[in-house]
């Protein structure tokens, strides 16, 4: 009984036919974000651009963790490689063309993902988590300790990419629009990918890899492909981050960032692409909230306390993440009413 309910719930969460309400909500969100440069001040534009970059980053991890069931604790490595590539490849005085520097940075990240994934995917479960962490730490030390990385104080670029003459990414509004477009493109790409045969294979691997192998699927190439795509998307996020800030530092490769993006994905809710987006927004906004001096006064410097408690509470109370909140509420309200009407005893949630 429970198993059937679980499977049903799982299938529903996949939402194979496109959910109309979800599509409308998505369109509305897109429009709202597109209007930000007109409505918000310079800080607001910056903030939303940053959140969208994190959203792309979270989407990359959602592909691995939520859809394939591979918990990667080293995602910051690909993010950082994309960012460092963007800065290292920028010539000292001229503005590089987006047409080559973006693919180049993404390819660097994807290449690293190929190398690391080929080795790391030989392990499973918790060991996979640790091996990905180990590789991320290795990349960190290359950036921190070798001349290639430019040292512990970081490096900066002097020019931001342009696309011909009509898109200059040093203008915050242009960068905002470009990031929004990228985020939408990545979202659509991943959504299509997950609905394809490839995506269903990944879902099968997540649910029961042994069964997949028993039916004749060799799972390794699928997992590696997912890993590389995920690394490429993370590299794109890193590229955008470097373009936005013009400054990169080895801390972009630290495990704290890997942990943060995991939190974003979990906070939003695993298993749904929009979970990654919601999680990124919630994470960033929560940080802003707790750091705000206007609300907390001088206690704002101890913002980690409130933030940590919120994380704990949200995991305890929202096991399916923020995405699952409407479902949870519905169950509580309608479930109880339906059970009372049907004369059944109250079941624990």
């Amino acid at each position, binding site marked *: 009984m429970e198993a059937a309910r679980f499977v049903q719930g799982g299938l529903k969460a996949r939402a194979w036919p496109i959910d109309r309400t979800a599509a409308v909500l998505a369109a509305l969100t897109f429009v709202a974000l597109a209007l930000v440069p007109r409505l918000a001040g310079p800080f607001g534009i910056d903030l939303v651009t940053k959140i969208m970059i994190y959203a792309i980053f979270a989407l990359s991890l959602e592909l691995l963790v939520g859809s394939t069931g591979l918990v990667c604790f080293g995602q910051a490595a690909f993010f950082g490689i994309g960012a460092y590539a963007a800065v290292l490849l920028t010539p000292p005085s001229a503005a590089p063309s987006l047409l080559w520097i973006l693919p180049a940075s993404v390819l660097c990240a994807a290449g690293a993902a190929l190398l690391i994934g080929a080795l790391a995917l*030989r392990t499973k479960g*918790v060991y996979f988590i640790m091996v990905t962490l*180990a590789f991320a*730490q290795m990349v960190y*030390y290359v950036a921190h300790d070798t001349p290639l990385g430019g040292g512990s104080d970081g490096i900066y670029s002097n020019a931001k990419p342009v696309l011909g003459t009509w898109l200059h990414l040093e203008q915050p509004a242009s960068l905002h629009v470009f990031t929004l477009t990228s985020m939408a493109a990545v979202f659509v790409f991943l959504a299509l990918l997950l609905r394809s045969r490839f995506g269903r294979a990944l879902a099968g691997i997540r649910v029961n890899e042994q069964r997949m192998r028993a039916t004749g699927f060799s799972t390794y190439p699928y997992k590696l492909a997912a890993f590389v795509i995920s690394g490429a998307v993370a590299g794109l996020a890193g590229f955008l981050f470097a373009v936005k800030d013009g400054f990169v530092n080895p801390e972009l490769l630290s495990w704290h960032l890997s942990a943060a993006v995991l939190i974003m994905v979990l906070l939003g809710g695993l298993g749904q692409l929009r979970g990654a987006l919601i999680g990124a927004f919630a994470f960033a906004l929560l940080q802003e909230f707790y750091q705000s001096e206007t609300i907390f006064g001088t206690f704002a410097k101890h913002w980690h306390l409130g*933030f*940590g408690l919120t994380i*704990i509470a949200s*995991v*305890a109370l929202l096991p399916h993440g923020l995405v699952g909140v409407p479902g949870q509420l519905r169950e509580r309200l309608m479930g109880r009413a339906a059970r009372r009407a049907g004369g059944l005893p109250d079941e624990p949630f």
Partner: protein
Amino acid sequence: MDVATALVQCLNALQYGLLLFLVASGLTLIFGIMGIINLAHGSFYMIGAYMAYVLAPIVGASFGGGFFATLLVGVVLSVLFGYALEWAFFSYLYEREHLQQVLMTYGLILVFEELRSLLVGDEVHGVATPGWLSDTVPLGGLMTYPVYRLFISGVCLAIAAGMYLVFTRTRLGMMIRAASCNREMVQSLGIDVKFLYRVVFAVGVALAVLAGMLAAPVSSLYPGMGNSVLILCFVVVVIGGIGSVRGALLSSLLVGAVDTFGKVLLPQAAGVLVYVFMALILLWKPQGLFKAG
């Protein structure tokens, strides 16, 4: 490197490895036996170190106790603390997936760090070595070796031996090992698994706190000290095989050796050698060196 220096380096490696084992043993217990990824383990280590700093004057003033009294008080407090923490918080984590455990314990790290900042402040502190242990032993005219470090190594070995005996020779150890293999079966045999898990968790916390208290005199207390210990602990536990205390001991010694000799022989790569080592071990033995137990 001449023979004398090499021998001293071996001693350094051994001593560092044993201290790592003391911290990591609690983690492998909690991780291996209860299946909980506890990122807050580094925080327990930090709590231990700060306990040594805070308790020492209190213990000294109230009943004139010295170093061992402080240790004892600290261990007792940490067992109670671990017991309460398991009951209030960690017992909800067993059914959850690893990821949710990661998230909740990460939140716990933030909470503990901030509480530390509020209660003790952000300054750097030190703890004095107990008087009768602050001697040094000359090492053939090259340098001297602090007796306290040898003392710590001795304590670590004693604890390792004690853990081995408890796990293999006592009923409690048998129950713990059984529960880590099959929780439901043990429960249906009438053994109170909840209580068992609580005890194991409390012991794991106590081990980490004890490690912090012991290491405090040769370390320093500063904000964020738990984080560097945490990652290294996980590396040690994973190399050794999750849940294997024997594996944790061997891998601690290996990591100690890699770190020590790496700093001297390959300083350019010293920061990354431990991770390379872990990656190599896991590629050779994807489940660590030893199986659980």
